[in-house]
């Protein structure tokens, strides 16, 4: 039995009568909640002393892997360093204790942070105005599409319900469009992985008056710069559609090109990618939305206050720390790191599209397909060597996609170490494929049974207890 994994849910550590809190005594006299308003039974929450709680969560953290633990080449996620000064300023009580509805004259410092951040984002993207309200990338996407839909509705052009996305687009794009009451049409890519402009023209000829927008990342999900963007933008605008820039891949563009200059009208930024705020195991992030002049009146109410303000604080601290001199090196250094890895591994991993990439690139599994070792196996084996896995099986254009994104923060030694391990795994795949196929071996747990989890979902401790009782 592995005690770190069995019997150690916080509920299982609970003992009746223990407590991990202290509160002041009630000085108000006998005000008590009337019985008819009360719940019948107390919530079955754990009862633990403070140190038990602290040890429990400290030990849990040891079963995690973060950017601070090691190289995290997770494609399309921009796992850059999360500077510590950002954490410190975000926690300053002069900001953390502000109620969002406090009178404006008492929140001038916070207002200034938002104003300056928006101004910086405008400068870095070439757009006119930003809203900080969206809570995450997907929320930003939805907000941006709402702006676009409102813009068309406002012109009385309600027939525009189609959003063009490249076939390599992230799954969130179609889902955001659906939530926004829009529909997706896909445009095919060329053999080199970029948008087929001729196919786009045909699509526009066929559906021109129904097109609300075209949604793109640039560089695209393969890490390739869409060099036809001036022509694409011209065509879509000529058809009356707007251009939406999905900021997922903005990082390599810092210091190189601005979405506004590329002809985009609306975009979102993932502050947790490009602007170094921590991913926090899945959130909170922030997805500010920027627009070209004339669209700023269409920002919808997608959250009640100022978005994830404490995340915005971190992003602003990051921009200030780097300053104009260093921020323009972010894109080039990230791009250099990606190309260096690509060139160093393309003889053993299948590179479907050769040439310069931007911040990331995609391999289609191992070059030698005879070993039966899949992208999944390579990813799991990397865990044994102390690396986080790249993004796998995305984009869907290839069967064995392995998408690698190093950020500008990674040193040559780190990257060389990763390259050596990737080559070693390719060697192992030939010499000892079973070792790779059964990886990982050195992690706290092995590969998990997804089917069992989905077939009989146990998602709470109460369900688990009931299950145990049944047996």
């Amino acid at each position: 039995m592995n005690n770190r994994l069995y019997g150690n849910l916080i509920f299982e550590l609970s003992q009746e009568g223990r407590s991990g809190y202290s509160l002041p005594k009630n000085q108000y006299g006998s005000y008590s909640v009337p019985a008819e308003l009360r719940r019948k039974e107390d919530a079955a929450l754990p009862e633990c002393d403070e140190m038990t709680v602290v040890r429990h969560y400290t030990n849990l953290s040891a079963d995690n892997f973060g950017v601070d633990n090691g190289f995290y080449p997770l494609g399309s996620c921009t796992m850059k360093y999360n500077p510590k000064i950002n954490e410190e300023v975000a926690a300053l009580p002069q900001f953390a204790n502000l109620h969002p509805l406090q009178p404006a004259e008492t929140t001038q410092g916070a207002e200034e942070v938002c104003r300056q951040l928006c101004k910086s984002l405008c400068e870095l993207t070439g757009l006119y105005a930003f809203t900080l309200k969206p809570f995450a990338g997907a929320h930003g996407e939805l907000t941006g599409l709402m702006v676009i839909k409102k813009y068309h509705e406002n012109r009385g052009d309600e027939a525009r319900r189609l959003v063009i996305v490249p076939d390599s687009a992230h799954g969130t794009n179609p889902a955001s469009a659906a939530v926004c009451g829009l529909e997706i049409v896909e445009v095919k890519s060329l053999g080199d992985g970029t948008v087929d402009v001729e196919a786009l023209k045909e699509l526009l000829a066929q559906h021109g008056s129904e097109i609300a927008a075209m949604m793109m990342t640039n560089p695209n999900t393969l890490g390739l710069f869409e060099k036809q963007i001036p022509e694409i933008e011209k065509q879509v605008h000529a058809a009356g559609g707007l251009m939406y820039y999905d900021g997922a891949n903005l990082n390599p563009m810092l210091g190189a090109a601005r979405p506004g200059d590329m002809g985009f009208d609306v975009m979102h930024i993932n502050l947790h990618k490009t602007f170094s705020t921590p991913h926090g195991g899945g959130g909170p992030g922030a997805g500010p939305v920027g627009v070209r002049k004339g669209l700023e009146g269409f920002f919808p109410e997608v959250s009640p206050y100022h978005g994830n303000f404490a995340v915005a604080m971190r992003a602003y601290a990051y921009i200030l720390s780097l300053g104009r001199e260093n921020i323009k090196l972010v894109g080039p250094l990230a791009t250099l790191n990606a190309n260096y890895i690509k060139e160093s591994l393309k003889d053993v991993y299948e590179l479907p599209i050769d040439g310069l990439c931007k911040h990331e690139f995609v391999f289609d599994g191992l070059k030698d397909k005879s070993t039966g070792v899949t992208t999944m196996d390579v990813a799991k084996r990397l865990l044994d060597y102390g690396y986080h896995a790249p993004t796998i099986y995305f984009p869907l254009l290839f069967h064995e996609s392995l998408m690698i994104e190093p950020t500008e923060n990674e040193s040559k030694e780190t990257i060389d170490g990763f390259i050596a391990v990737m080559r070693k795994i390719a060697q192992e795949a030939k010499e000892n494929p079973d070792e790779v196929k059964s990886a990982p071996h050195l992690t706290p747990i092995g590969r998990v049974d997804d089917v069992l989890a989905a077939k009989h979902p146990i998602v709470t401790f109460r369900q688990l207890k009931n299950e145990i009782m049944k047996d």
Partner: protein
Amino acid sequence: MFKYFPHTDADLQAMFRKVGIKSLDDLYAEVPGQIRFRGEYQLPGEMSEMEVRQLFDKLGAENKQLTCFAGAGVYDHYTPSAIPQLLSRSEFLTSYTPYQAEISQGTLHYIFEYQSMMAELTGMDISNASMYDGSTATAEAVMMAVAAGKKQNKVLVSETIDPKVLAVVKTYAHFHGIKIEMIPAKDGVTDLSTLNSQLSTDVAGVLVQQPNFYGIVEDYGGFADACHNQKALFIMNSVAADLAVLKTPGEWGADIAVGDGQSLGIPMQWGGPYVGYMCCTEKLIRKMPGRIVGMTQDNRGQRAFVLTLQAREQHIRRQKATSNICSNQSLMALWATVYMSLMGKQGLKEAAELSYAGAHYLCDELVKTGKFTLAYNQPFFNEFVVRYSGDVDALQKRLTENGIFGGIKLDADKLMFAVTEKRTKEEVDNLVKMAAL
């Protein structure tokens, strides 16, 4: 090089050689000249860490620290010091969504605990891994009800709901093609007979709030049955911490329980990040948006946690997805989880009871001044609305000048106050003194 960039000149040269370029500029050879950015960003120059720190101190000093007697969905509860300490652990802070279960058990494990605790607190069967905040969770619940109901597209919303939440719900509904119809309030509460007159076969869901926006604990007896008779889902929005004491959404017969978890010890931080929760009945599990963590086994026979039921999610369902959410508010869910672990069964209840006592004491004392009367003759929890016989704006100004955020103005003559366990009796007495002037 700058402190976040490790590249030495020698590194750059070696890497250039491998890539076959002569300069960083060559990496962008394919970018058309007319869109290549060659200027200088109009931004401040690099700042040292000390300068950054000083700047934020200066900006911080431009905010005014007030003793908070306001709520309206955001409450000034106490944060036990163990929480920020634990949350600052890099392994939690700097990891991504737990796709690689083998090296993400820490995150998956606490999300499972979070789900378990939220289900207990709300009295519901299951919970998802969390959502952005209370308002978006509520909007998602409305969309979920419509998706579950297939052909119905109207949702009834009580007028006693937080107007800020309502605004977000209306935004989502407008774009998603959902019809929102308000249920008029009577004396600050939702009326069952009015609801009954509005229910029809095209109603997919009914949304109410408990305690409602005015802090009133409403009687929702009969509401669930009324909804279910018309095949509509009953959705209840609640302040999470209050459920340690109050009759739960589960007990009221709700199908979906949603709300904000900020009250679980999360700082107000001017509006976010907070954490939205969503719980529902077991029957609806596959209709629920967002991430869900489930228990399973690994290939060594050990207990393990994993993201499950992913087929519902946007990256697989794409246009058919029930929602576009593709993350959760993981770290804030951890915040709430550690809070509930420390406070436990008793502490959460005690904090809620203290808040209740403080609010009732404040209300009584304000009424005693002769200048305030309770606006609604209804039971309330830790927040209440009073009518003020004087000038509300002048009163608020006076309170602010004296370092007090004295309630939220609802009307020309109405103010809403909230009290949490963090307020001392001295602070309450001081507020009363200032308000009586």
